[in-house]
């Protein structure tokens, strides 16, 4: 199986590091792991290189996660991209918007096991 290229989008470098650590422990065959600290940086990566899985925070400066999901939905690669929103978000309207984009949702604080299970489910890869 081809390795998965992953983009981790969060304005917290610590949270990006925690997510990457969990991904590396998940048993997934990982390829490139890219980082972005906001939606604009994420789009620059997505438009430039092939990404299979993107993890997105909602509350970010410059461009937040919901706007990023809106922009991704307009891109030709949207159908092939699997998306997980990783956020503390507790607002029902925002969570409904996340679901409308077909993204999986993991609430912070998450256990490594929970994030791993969601990643495995959404990628269809068994550990």
């Amino acid at each position: 199986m081809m390795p998965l290229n992953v983009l981790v989008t969060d304005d917290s470098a610590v949270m990006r590091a925690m997510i990457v650590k969990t991904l590396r422990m998940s048993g997934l065959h990982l390829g490139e792991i890219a980082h972005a600290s906001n939606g604009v940086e994420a789009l620059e990566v997505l438009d430039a290189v092939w990404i299979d899985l993107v993890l997105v925070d909602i509350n970010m400066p410059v461009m937040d996660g919901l706007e990023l999901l809106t922009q991704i939905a307009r891109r030709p690669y949207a159908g092939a991209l699997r998306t997980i929103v990783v956020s503390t978000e507790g607002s029902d309207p925002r969570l409904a918007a996340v679901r409308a984009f077909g993204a999986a949702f993991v609430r912070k604080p998450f256990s490594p096991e929970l994030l791993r299970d969601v990643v495995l489910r959404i990628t269809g890869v068994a550990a």
Partner: protein
Amino acid sequence: MSACERHLTDVATRTLETLCFCYPMPLLSNAHRDAHVDAAMSVAFRGPISGRLVVRVCGGMLGAIASNMLGDADADTRMQRDALGEVANVMCGTVIPLIGGSNVAFVLGAPLPVVVLGHVKPHPVAEASFGLEQSGRVDVFLYLEAA
């Protein structure tokens, strides 16, 4: 204990356990109470209710918390501070909808250091303190602005 304090205590406990891999103790010993302050971070929020949440770590536990979160025993001072900021961010983002309602949206600011360590504003609407290991402590304070 008020509903606000119960939510804050529950969220802080869950965050310390799940995000920081710590085991917070609600009963404090004298060693916990006497612990010196390591660092404090604040996250402001705006919405139907506005205010800020402050997390303060004492007793030399900041490095241990950052190491647990990052899986890196050599996290430098900046990463330790950022780790504490993320703890504050997660606690704030989780507790505010429980207090202010989930049918509305809140905007959270970036975590900022509390410059004068040990001096947090008096009269929070809720606070919670936990012992960590033998002599560490985490304090969490929630402040609301007058409407």
